[in-house]
């Protein structure tokens, strides 16, 4: 397939791996690189990269899975919204199976709620226009990657004067959780495989704080297996040549200034919350978006008297320290036994981008299985 097969070329992969092997030998120590984005986690396990790299090179799975970071209380609110009379609740498929204290959206659907999965917020807006006598709510989740499409949808909804549409906004920002992890001092990292999709919006320059303030290298990276191998090669090369900077491996898509039009749109449609709760990470100041006053009529949180009860993470669940990269998924107490993709306790086991689900579904093989 054009534009995909090029990035999965076996010969190129083998030569990159040979270079990485040589770099690793020369550097002679272990490296822990955090891949920030759940998309990278998925690619790493989907293509078996973990076991292809030399053993001293370890990936640490970061917090960038949008499904994984949603706390239980927000899921409960979603289930509550879905259960309101006359509501059609629209969501990305991944969110359907995330458990709240009152069950998941999938279970709400089985119990009679009208829950529909969509591929984009514009699809949700179409549902609203096709069902003028129903209240249609879209469950917006995701980092700066997906926030612009929600923003565009609300601009469109304004232009079309759609009155039966609202957004339950759970968009989050990438920088605050990265700072929280870097400030925690629990974890020794040697660099970042930077989030390519987020960077298309915010720009690679957005990550300057990592080398400048924390003295760690970061390579903004694409999502094909070769992209990730090349990022590892670039990170190791920085160590070999004594550099520490933001590099852009994903230059075919990412500009250093990002996408100014998208950023301007987000500025208009969203405002940064004082604080937002993250699954496993707790409340992080200025880390989430709410709908701005200018678009208040599309804000489900203002339109519905939602219970918004904060719920503690399940005690058995160690999603927090998995999201911070402190433990590998298989080191969690309930991993694979009480918590599995079909009966998830934590969000990391739900999304295909969650570290636990990716490891359980793809990576549950020992290095010896070749």
């Amino acid at each position, binding site marked *: *397939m054009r534009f995909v097969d090029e990035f999965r070329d076996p010969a190129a992969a083998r030569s990159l791996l040979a270079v990485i092997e040589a770099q690793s030998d020369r550097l002679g120590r272990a490296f822990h690189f955090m891949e920030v984005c759940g998309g990278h986690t998925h690619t790493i396990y989907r293509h078996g990269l973990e076991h*292809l790299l030399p053993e001293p090179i370890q990936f640490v799975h970061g917090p960038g899975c949008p499904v994984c970071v949603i706390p239980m209380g927000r899921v409960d609110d979603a289930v509550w919204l879905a259960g309101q009379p006359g509501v059609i609740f629209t969501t990305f498929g991944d969110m359907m199976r995330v458990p709240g204290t009152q069950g998941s959206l999938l*279970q709400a659907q*089985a119990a009679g709620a009208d829950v529909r999965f969509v591929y*984009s917020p514009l699809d949700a807006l179409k549902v609203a226009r096709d069902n003028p006598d129903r209240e249609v709510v879209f469950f917006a989740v995701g980092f700066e990657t997906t926030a612009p499409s929600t923003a565009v949808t609300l601009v469109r909804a304004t232009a079309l004067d759609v009155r039966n549409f609202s957004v339950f906004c759970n968009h989050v920002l990438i920088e605050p959780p990265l700072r929280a992890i870097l400030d925690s001092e629990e974890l020794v990292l040697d660099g970042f495989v930077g989030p390519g999709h987020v960077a298309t919006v915010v720009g690679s320059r957005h990550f300057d704080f990592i080398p400048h303030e924390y003295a760690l290298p970061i390579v903004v990276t694409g999502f094909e297996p070769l992209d990730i191998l090349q990022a590892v090669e670039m990170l190791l090369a920085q160590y070999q040549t004594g550099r520490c900077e933001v590099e852009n491996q994903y230059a075919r898509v990412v500009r250093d200034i990002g996408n100014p039009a998208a950023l301007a749109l987000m500025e208009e449609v969203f405002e940064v919350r004082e604080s937002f709760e993250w699954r496993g990470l707790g409340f992080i100041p200025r880390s989430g978006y709410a709908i701005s006053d200018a678009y208040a009529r599309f804000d489900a949180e203002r339109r519905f008297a939602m219970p918004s009860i904060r719920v503690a993470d399940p005690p058995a669940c160690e999603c927090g320290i998995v999201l911070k990269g402190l433990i590998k998924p298989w080191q969690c107490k309930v991993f694979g036994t009480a918590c599995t993709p079909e009966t998830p306790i934590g969000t990391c086991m739900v999304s295909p981008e969650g570290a636990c689900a990716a490891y359980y579904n793809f990576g549950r093989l020992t290095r010896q299985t070749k």
Partner: protein
Amino acid sequence: MNTQSEASSRGRDKSESEVLERIEAVRARGPRLRDETVTLAHGAGGKASAALVQAVFIEAFGAPNPLELCDAAVLTLPTDESKGSRGPVQDGSARPRGLVQAASLGPLGLAQESSAASLGPLGPTGLAQEGSAASLGPPEAACGVGAEDSLGAAGPRIALSTDSYVVKPLRFPGGSIGDLAVNGTVNDLAVSGARPLWLSAAFVVEEGLPIALLRGVVADMRAAADRAAVTIVAGDTKVVPKGAADECFISTAGVGVVPPGRNLGAGQVRVGDAVLVSSALGNHGMAVMMARGDLAFEADIRTDSAPVNHLVEALFAAVPDTRWMRDPTRGGLGTVANELASASGLGVMLDEASLPIEPLVRGACDMLGIDPLYVASEGCFVAVVPVEAVAVAVAALRDAGATAATQIGQIVADPPGLVAVRNAFGGVRLVDMLVGDPLPRIC
């Protein structure tokens, strides 16, 4: 503190392989049904479906081998000598209780409603049992086709299969619910080692359905039956009020005869055997997805819905000791490979580069974030043959018209009971049972 010391400070002294072993032990207990209501996941053909079938249906009906459930039951008819001499069927085998309205089969045209079609001479076997299935006596039920010798003076073997079709929309590029309802049941019989002969068809129709639409669907059934050389001999029609069904649901059951000498089953599979597939994967699932028109893009993908019985016959003729077969319908190759791995206790190692997936199907799957390994085909089967027979098997399938037939993997000892896929640059990943259904109502 780095990850290692953090791990040990929390008493995480277990190694990764110990954890993996513990997980496999948990998985070996089989799926548990914890839900209080049926959700769509229970119909998706993955883990939740397996849990529902085990906890509700197998619990009530029993099965000769609950760990290896097949698309069709292969039943050994008693000979005259053995009739009546056998005691009650052993616990766990299939008991056809109260099946008094079975068609007795023959080229007699359609038996309507609950009247039994009385069946003429049953092929070469000379069986002409009039009336109820109960008069067939207690049959030996088997999964796949077991060795006849083990049954002593047993009579001919028949295969019985049933399936329901609820695909939405009723028509999609390259097919309709009608040909699907015939091909699906024909193929379930074929991959059980049987030569399909007769089908029944039951319709649940929502009031308001245009007769012309129904007529078209039924015409497709007739054409598919002709192509597969089977006869639709019994039927039933129910009409329900608007909203009690969605346009039209069809259930078909099929009967076939298993020729002597065929030994299919996960127990026949050996390390080193080759895994083949007869055609490209995933076309049906993606064709139906596209036909719904609720995606933001379109692609010209057609269903592969077709009977495979002639291909199965070609394979048996070329490789009589074919070990195992299954059609990768709902849940796709990933699901049937997992069924094989868990039933045999062996590993299935697939080779990603050799999987026949059309570029349009692959592209659509990539855009939707769906793994094509889990997308249904409806005119395709997966077979395991001895490794020395690979070339003969592939050539026979290609000669019979399955031009994309190819080897896609191998049976391995490690990882036991699991499916893995090796990609073009040597990375290996697991292919687990599907959880949740990305594509509901595709068949």
